[in-house]
């Protein structure tokens, strides 16, 4: 996809399909799909404005298998597992297939001691699977516990939108959590909140930038920088193999001024926040 699905003029992040997304993350664009054979079932024989089975069939007919694609890949040289959601498949809703594929991906990560890279884009639980969809939230949290015990990193990238049961389960539990610019991140969406509480919401309600301010994500990261950023983190967490590599401390024999300026410019320094904070402010939620 042209420019990674980011507008060359205004940097708007357009939706990107899961396979393109994985190709963006994978070294050389090469990756292997896992568990592509899992398909939605219809345990409730559910019908709203149309039968669930027809919704699924139509979505599958367009070439998508389900709302999540799982894969093995190498990211900046680190063998990894990825689980990438697809908002195009029934709004990226989490039903049994999403829960099972996420759990299997986490299991593979735990078993092989490899990082799990997750990209979320979801309207929440798949309502057509009823309470069984709700249970997928708990199932994915079990999977996160498996990762923790195996000491496998969980990197979460929140794409637009990440809401409902996905945000209230594994998407909130990353070791490192990045959000794409402008992504809506919320448990209850703006419409539900306005209808329930008659609150007038601020224009940036729930957006990635506001959620950074709210302490809910580690950084807002441009899509084109994601592989480098994730690769950077994975490189840091990588255990030494065999014996310690030579120290090779990067002694910066530079002037104090240069060194200081360089330090200020380290990745992750939340410069943008500065504008939002009052001098000497004793901050609380806005």
């Amino acid at each position, binding site marked *: 996809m042209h420019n990674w699905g980011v507008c060359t003029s205004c940097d708007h992040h357009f939706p990107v399909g899961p396979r393109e997304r994985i190709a963006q993350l994978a070294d050389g664009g090469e990756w292997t799909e896992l568990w*592509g*054979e*899992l*398909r*939605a*079932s*219809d*345990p*409730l024989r*559910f019908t*709203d*404005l149309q039968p669930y089975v027809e919704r699924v069939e139509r979505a599958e007919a367009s070439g998508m298998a389900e709302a999540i694609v799982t894969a093995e890949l190498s990211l900046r040289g680190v063998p990894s597992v990825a689980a990438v959601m697809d908002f195009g498949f029934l709004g990226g809703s989490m*039903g*049994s*297939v999403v*829960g*099972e594929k996420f*759990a299997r991906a986490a299991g593979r990560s735990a078993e092989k001691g490899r990082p799990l890279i997750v990209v979320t884009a979801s309207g929440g*639980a798949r*309502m*057509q*699977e*009823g*309470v*069984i969809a*709700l*249970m*997928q*939230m*708990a*199932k994915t*949290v*079990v999977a996160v*516990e498996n990762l923790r015990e195996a000491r496998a990193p969980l990197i979460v990238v929140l794409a637009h939108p990440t809401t*409902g*049961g996905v*945000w*209230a*389960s*594994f*998407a*909130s*539990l990353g070791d490192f959590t990045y959000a794409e610019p402008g992504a809506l*991140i*919320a*448990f*209850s969406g703006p419409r*539900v*909140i306005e*209808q*329930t*509480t008659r*609150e007038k*919401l*601020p224009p940036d*309600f*729930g957006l990635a930038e506001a959620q950074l301010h*709210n302490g*809910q994500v580690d950084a807002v990261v441009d899509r084109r920088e994601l592989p480098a950023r994730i690769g950077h983190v994975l490189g840091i967490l990588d255990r030494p193999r065999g014996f310690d590599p030579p120290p090779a401390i990067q002694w910066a024999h530079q002037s104090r001024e240069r060194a200081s300026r360089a330090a200020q410019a380290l990745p992750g320094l939340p410069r943008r926040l500065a504008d939002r904070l009052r001098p000497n402010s004793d901050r609380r939620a*806005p």
Partner: protein
Amino acid sequence: MSVVRRGRFTRKITAKISPDRSDGDDVWDVIQLARHQDRPYPLDYVQRLMTDFEEIHGDRLLSDDPALVCGVGRYHGRPVAVIGHQKGRDTNERTFRNFGMPSPEGYRKGMRLMELAAKFDLDLITLIDTPGAYPGAGAEERGQGGAIARSMQAMLRLPVPTVAVVIGEGSSGGALALGVADRVVMLENTTYSVISPEGGSAILWRDAGRARDAAAAFRPTAANCYRWGVADAVVPEPPGGAHEDADEAARLLDTYLDRTLSELRRLTDAERRTRRRERFRRMGVYREVPPEGGAAIASGRAGRSASSPNDHPAQGKRDPSS
């Protein structure tokens, strides 16, 4: 089959549960019963089941959330921890309790109680009855999603026996946050659902007035949740419903709770944690289609797991239609 049976609980759990509440009117009736304003709420059960109770307050971070009642009590001569959604009965208390819709502070108070449960080896009983977590801008800014996720995580990590009881309506992640227990049980006239029928109506029918249709589609009754393997047991209510006789409702729940906690205490901490995780790991119904040009994949997923005697047919099963 005309009676919901469940292993050793069969004797007590023989109430007049229609096994086929798929009819829309029946489902709607249960929803009304589950929401009946005279139904016993957590403090009503505590009053009847515990000889003493001491509520804790505050998350030690920001506030106290009256929508979630958390405390320690004495149950059958042992100390237990209790967390429950408290809706409030009159207008003042409903407002005070925010209609049983917790803010993040509520779940964080609950996690604080879970720490006490771990320290003092207290069995944990959760009593679920909520239309959902509170949908407010402030709640979102203070991490409602993460609070629910971490509440589930905390329940998974607990070493102590845990039982979740749906005593009214259990809607959405706001309910499940307290539901990741060793045993999940529902009273006869209660519901457990991915969303309230009104919410489902607005989203799926794009019409706030189709709640009955949504209810008939979700079919979130105790009997159905039992059939789907989401509930481990259904506890009968007194004739007419729990609101007709709170004492009898508490007595019926007591029979189940006391026996189940005793049973769970026979396991080691590690066994309980492992089985709890396996229970939720198995949840889901899906198909596995043969990969292109390959053979059908059929190994391993179907049927019961040997490690858990409480396995459900609907858990981890490939759908027969696949």
